[in-house]
């Protein structure tokens, strides 16, 4: 089992959700986060000077899937979240030891 953690642009979230649903990935946990990459946010140029917005709002998705689904989900998220511009985000894949369904106590590993 793997956890896919994707940090994406908020305005792409609806598209990613739809694309994942179309591929059969329904369950997910999302949170509104702030973050930055190597560009340290964006610099907005004004007459009065430069203003740096160094932490930009992002959406973080967490999805736990079978090992065999990793490639499909990475491609799906990448295609739906990509705008081609700086700040499209990143995907991380983490190993998951176990998952337990609280209602039934059913365990999966």
């Amino acid at each position, binding site marked *: 089992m793997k956890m896919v953690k994707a940090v994406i*642009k*908020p*305005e792409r*979230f*609806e*598209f990613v959700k739809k694309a994942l649903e179309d591929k059969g990935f329904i369950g997910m946990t999302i949170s509104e986060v702030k973050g930055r990459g190597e560009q340290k946010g*964006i610099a*907005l140029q004004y007459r009065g000077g430069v*203003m740096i*917005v160094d932490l*930009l*709002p992002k959406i973080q998705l967490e999805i736990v899937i079978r090992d065999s689904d990793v490639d499909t989900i990475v491609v799906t998220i990448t295609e739906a979240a990509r705008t081609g511009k700086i700040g499209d985000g990143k995907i991380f894949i983490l190993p998951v030891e176990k998952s337990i369904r609280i209602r039934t106590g059913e365990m999966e590993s």
Partner: protein
Amino acid sequence: MALDTGVTTWLMVSAILVMLMTPGVGFFYGGLVRKKNFISMIALSFVVLALVSVHWILIGYSLAFGQDIGGVIGNLDFVGLNGVSADAGSGAYPPLVFMVFQLFFAAVTVTIVTSAVAERIRFSSFIVFVLVWLTLVYCPLAHWAWGGGWASKLGLIDFAGGTVVEICSGFGALALALVIKNRAGFGEYALEPHNIPMALLGAALLWFGWFGFNAGSALAVNSVAVNAFVTTNTAAAAGALAWMFAGWYHGKPSSLGMVSGAIAGMVAITPAAGFVTPLVSLLIGGVAGVLCYGMMLVRVRKKCDESLDAWAIHGMGGLWGTVATGIFAVAAIGGISGLAEGNAWQFAVNTVCAVAALIFSFVMTYCIAFVIDRTLGMRVTEDEEYVGLDICQHGERA
């Protein structure tokens, strides 16, 4: 007749009530946008209030209410409030009180237009737009209807601004929306209101302020003022219930629908408040609630991002109200008969003037916005739009 303390007091109180409507619109709109543009929406209303306050005493009041030039615009006699006395002279109230009362009408009208540019306007260009728009659109329209221009000579009856405020701002907003174009993501994903309680509070301020707006427009404390006071509240209530039930039929009775309906009702009764009976105001407000709800659906279906529905509510509600005034005016209330009492002429005049105001506002606003867009640029950059106007235009967070 010397200064009447009752009338002067009521006008000053009315001016305060109308003043509160400008930030009221700001809070109403502020609740309806996404959180990242919350401050921006309210800031627009305050900058309008400040800009109009300066513009109006320097030149606006004179253009609207100065000596008539060809039925089109006022002259420059009152520039800088020259000759606008704080002394009542032979009148019941000082001209200076009337000036400040009218100032707040101009401010709330411009604020309504900000619906069209929500979440994407460049603040600096907006300031230029406000000053030009006031001079070339609002002042002439106010002059036509109230300052002795051609519409008032023709016999238009517009009690508190069905043409001047509502049609003018509503159709101006539509034109502006067509120039500035849709928000990024409009039609692709939901751009949901972030704070509905805030919008409800803004609407409450509007309902509160509208008593000064309409009943104050009697410019007296008499039966007309009292009638306007009651018709205003009645139309608001009818509009709220009508929109609520119309929305309920399609889903749930939303709180936002209720207050939108109340605003639609008050918009429609604005030109009629001192001319129709309270019973008829029930009809005018109720029809407005359903009509404006329908117009909002049309606007959404046409994929037009006139973001916060100034056109559907103020434009179409004002159009209906102005025409309805020509139909339902009763001689026993405001001294003028409408179509229902056999005076077809009044109906014709009100309809013609409403359409004239509609065309003038739409065309002029389109031209002004187009020129500003091509020279200064009306919109922020795409990056700035995604980050939100609060941070990129004001450097603040809600």
